[in-house]
């Protein structure tokens, strides 16, 4: 109790003589007091001697989508008040050449753009390919002067035709003249219609998974300092060590000559995996000019400069029998990757891997093409390829259910993998570790009162109520720690005073790592959480690590901390035995009190301080590197209830009931928080958010007055159902939970909107289901009757 000294902890009280683990309990966060009172220390808040007098960096960005870059006249900008320097690609003569083409593999872990003919420059050199592309930077004494001076940089743009959307496939204009096509990657199986031969019913539909902006509340921010051959970079990233690796390659530096520090990070959602070219440019400017520099982007800059997510067009084909068995499924994906293929084929590859979802479908085919277009590059965004897979199969299941006239819940139940199927290898080659998919569906149906909801829907339909009720379902399985083999690091020190410090290669940006890791140490060693300091995100202190993406932190980074704690415990057992002059085999640790003693003899009791100081002035130290043999596969079901006003097209999201099974839960408070946030971002895609360009590639949603980031007023409170099916892939029994909410919520809400109108003949509405789109779908359905 009182693990954080606040009295607000909900940890169970310690019954005498009974070891009650803190794991699985609702512990409030150690991070919060500072965040609530003095605020976090985000990059732009960092005040250190090295950054005194730092110049402010302001980017000059392309205002046109596609153009040959002509002269850049910097003379007026250089004469502007406060101007220190104006830098363009011409000044970048101290950098190594871009990497060769990597062949199109790509990964979420190291979002280094494809090289070779697809190379992405740091600053535009001969051509600009999207609105917002960095062209030059201006260094000034303060940020207001930077905006003024940047406007004085005169750039000559000679416009080229703009390439947008799926039409990029056969557009005459090429974004990259040294290539033969705008298709950067092609993969998958050619269409084989025979897979659908035995089907009574085949439904085909082309659907959009629209482009989204991640919008972390803190945009991108960097500060950099160069002295004595060493570069220090403070950056808002999910991965300090990967950032160092990327910087070293781009700047031609030995990684040992770079220190990356990640202070508090104001949200990432995948868009802060590694770092962007903008960050590299800022770091380079510190070396180039010898001045400390800092940059924090504006929101308008963020909405065009930070990578976007999703942007898939999917052609789905589903076939089966009239009694509800799905026999074959195919998805053909067109991935708009924006102006530069940052992740190559990774995102649609993950969509393909997870295409079949939680179902036992015998025939599954996938194929994709990755297109470059004159838009902001696409990269990871909460779910990164998996929400797209779930959106496709869950829309397909509803289309199939509507076609055969069967309840969507029943169609799902008839096709879900049974609980005895695990481990299960899918047609796409994923090995699902564990699950009870039908149980999650049934729990959600029961919690929502599914039968009663259908009755209410029927009543409204009968009386022709202008406000119709829709019920949407999505059953999903997703992949977490997809790069399980890359693992994560931890180092645990128990100091001579009995306190502990856990160093983690994982990286926090809101998830509560510091609370969770301290809980793991307390659970194993009995050192109270408030005596455990957690350190992350400084490559001088933690040179090896991977960081946070793909819902990997607890199952890799957390297990590494757990392993380090076990290792410290075994060392301590030897030291304690030596201290007490007893046999090692007789030593026991009371994890409630953190006391070592000879078994059954409290008179011999020694504290951690006694033991650690006996070990030497450095205390006890253990390092661990933990990699899993395979990823894990969380699963669940979401049910959304919406009202649709058929006269205006307005959708009101009334209820959202979910079971999200991520194995054993370390701290329900944190896990629920991840689910809540995930659900909201999913609902946002289904109902309100979309990044839009006009026909010339001008962004129409480049401020938060135009981009409809979802608000509290548009959401209900969420109804979370508990479901915990441990995995045996790791010793904590844990799977990832960071992205599940988004993955399940998107199709549940979309399906609910369409379900509300299905009796009118509406079968599909693209996202976001804005009033205009919904109203148009209703009108079209009525007209065709």
């Amino acid at each position, binding site marked *: 109790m009182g693990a954080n000294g606040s009295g607000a902890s909900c940890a169970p009280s310690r019954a005498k003589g009974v070891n009650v683990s803190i794991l699985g309990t609702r512990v*409030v966060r150690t991070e919060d007091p500072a965040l*609530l009172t003095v605020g976090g220390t985000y990059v732009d808040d960092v005040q250190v001697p090295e950054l005194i007098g730092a110049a402010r960096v302001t980017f000059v960005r392309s205002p046109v989508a596609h153009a040959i870059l002509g002269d850049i006249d910097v003379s007026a900008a250089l004469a502007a008040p406060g101007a220190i320097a104006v830098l363009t690609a011409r000044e970048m003569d101290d950098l190594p050449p871009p990497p060769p083409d990597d062949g199109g593999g790509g990964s979420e872990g190291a979002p280094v753009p494809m090289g070779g003919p697809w190379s992405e420059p740091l600053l535009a050199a001969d051509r600009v390919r999207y609105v917002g592309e960095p062209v030059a930077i201006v260094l000034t004494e303060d940020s207001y002067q930077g905006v003024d001076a940047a406007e004085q940089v005169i750039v000559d743009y000679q416009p080229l035709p703009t390439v947008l959307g799926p039409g990029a496939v056969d557009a005459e204009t090429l974004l990259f003249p040294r290539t033969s096509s705008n298709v950067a990657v092609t993969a998958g199986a050619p269409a084989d219609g025979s897979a659908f031969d035995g089907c009574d019913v085949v439904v085909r539909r082309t659907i959009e998974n629209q482009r989204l902006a991640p919008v972390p*509340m*803190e945009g991108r921010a960097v500060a950099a300092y160069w002295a004595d051959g060493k570069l220090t970079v403070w950056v808002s990233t999910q991965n300090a060590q990967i950032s160092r690796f990327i910087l070293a390659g781009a700047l031609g530096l030995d990684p040992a000559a770079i220190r990356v520090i990640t202070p508090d990070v*104001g*949200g990432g959602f995948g868009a802060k995996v590694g770092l962007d070219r903008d960050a590299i440019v800022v770091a380079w400017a510190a070396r180039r000019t010898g001045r400390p520099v800092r940059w924090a982007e*504006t929101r308008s800059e963020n909405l065009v400069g930070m990578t976007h997510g999703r942007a898939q067009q999917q052609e789905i084909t589903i076939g089966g029998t009239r009694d509800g068995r799905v026999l074959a499924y195919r998805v053909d994906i067109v991935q708009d990757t924006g102006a530069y293929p940052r992740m190559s084929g990774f995102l649609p590859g993950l969509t393909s891997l997870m295409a079949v979802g939680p179902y036992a479908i015998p025939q599954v085919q996938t194929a994709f093409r990755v297109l470059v277009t004159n838009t902001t590059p696409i990269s990871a965004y909460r779910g990164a390829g998996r929400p797209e897979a779930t959106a496709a199969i869950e829309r397909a299941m509803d289309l199939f259910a509507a076609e055969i006239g069967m309840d969507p819940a029943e169609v799902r139940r008839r096709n879900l993998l049974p609980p005895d199927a695990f481990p299960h290898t899918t047609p796409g080659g994923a090995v699902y570790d564990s699950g009870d998919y039908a149980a999650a569906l049934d729990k959600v149906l029961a919690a929502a009162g599914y039968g009663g909801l259908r009755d209410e829907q029927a009543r409204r339909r009968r009386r022709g109520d202008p406000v119709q009720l829709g019920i949407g379902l999505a059953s999903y399985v997703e992949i977490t720690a997809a790069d399980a083999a890359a693992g994560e690091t931890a180092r645990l020190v128990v100091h001579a005073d009995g306190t502990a410090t856990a160093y983690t290669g994982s990286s926090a940006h809101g998830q509560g790592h510091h609370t969770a890791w301290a809980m793991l140490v307390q659970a194993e060693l009995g050192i109270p959480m408030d005596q455990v300091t957690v350190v992350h995100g400084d490559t001088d202190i933690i040179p090896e690590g991977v960081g946070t993406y793909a819902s990997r932190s607890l199952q890799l980074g957390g297990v590494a901390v757990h392993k380090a704690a076990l290792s410290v415990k075994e060392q301590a057992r030897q030291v304690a035995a030596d201290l007490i002059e007893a046999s090692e085999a007789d030593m026991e640790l009371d994890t409630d009190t953190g006391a070592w003693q000879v078994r059954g003899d409290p008179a011999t009791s020694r504290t951690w301080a006694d033991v650690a100081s006996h070990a030497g002035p450095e205390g006890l130290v253990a390092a661990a590197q933990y990699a899993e043999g395979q990823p894990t596969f969380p699963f669940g079901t979401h049910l959304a209830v919406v009202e649709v006003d058929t006269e205006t097209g307005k959708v009101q999201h009334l209820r959202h009931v979910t079971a999200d099974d991520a194995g054993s839960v370390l701290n329900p408070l944190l896990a629920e928080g991840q689910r809540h*946030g995930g659900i909201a971002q999913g609902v946002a895609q289904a109902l309100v958010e979309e990044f839009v360009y006009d026909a010339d590639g001008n962004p129409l949603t480049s401020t938060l007055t135009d981009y409809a980031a979802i608000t509290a*007023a548009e959401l209900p409170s969420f109804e979370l159902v508990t479901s915990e099916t441990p995995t045996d892939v790791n010793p904590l029994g844990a799977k990832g939970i960071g992205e599940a909410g988004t993955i399940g919520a998107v199709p549940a809400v979309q399906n609910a909107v369409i379900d509300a109108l299905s009796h009118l003949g509406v079968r599909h509405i693209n996202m976001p289901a804005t009033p205009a789109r919904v109203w148009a779908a209703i009108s079209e359905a009525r007209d065709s009757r």
Partner: protein
Amino acid sequence: VKLTVTVNGSPVPADVADRTLLVHFIREVAGLTATNVGCDTSSCGACTVLLDGQSVKSCTLLAAQADGREVVTAEGLAGPQGELHPVQAAFRAEHGLQCGFCTPGMVMAAVSLLAENPSPTEEEVRVGLEGNLCRCTGYHNIVRAILAASKETASKEQAG
């Protein structure tokens, strides 16, 4: 322009450029960085502070407009011994924050909301927060925290 703004009870005199926004005055002149800048269109509310007791978006005012007036930021809410304000305590107990970037503004908006409406319904809280964006929590626990703080305050007043 020469001005004096009282920030969290202390007068802060300064001579700043006319166009200096209040949020930059708070962050760079007063040196208080809990108040964040999350957008450039007065949309996100991360910069919310109290000006003479009313919540305002400090990116939407010039520092000069706050001359002679009282500003309270998140740093000014906790008690003298660092004890959390009831709204701060409720945000912690209900896990109403994750990355923390929107939090100071969100807390100030909540304090202002409860001052105007001490016993809001869930609907009133949600509508009242429309000008403050959070990307992490889905608002679920923020709403719970504000409702809990409201009950806490109500029961204390009853007891008093």
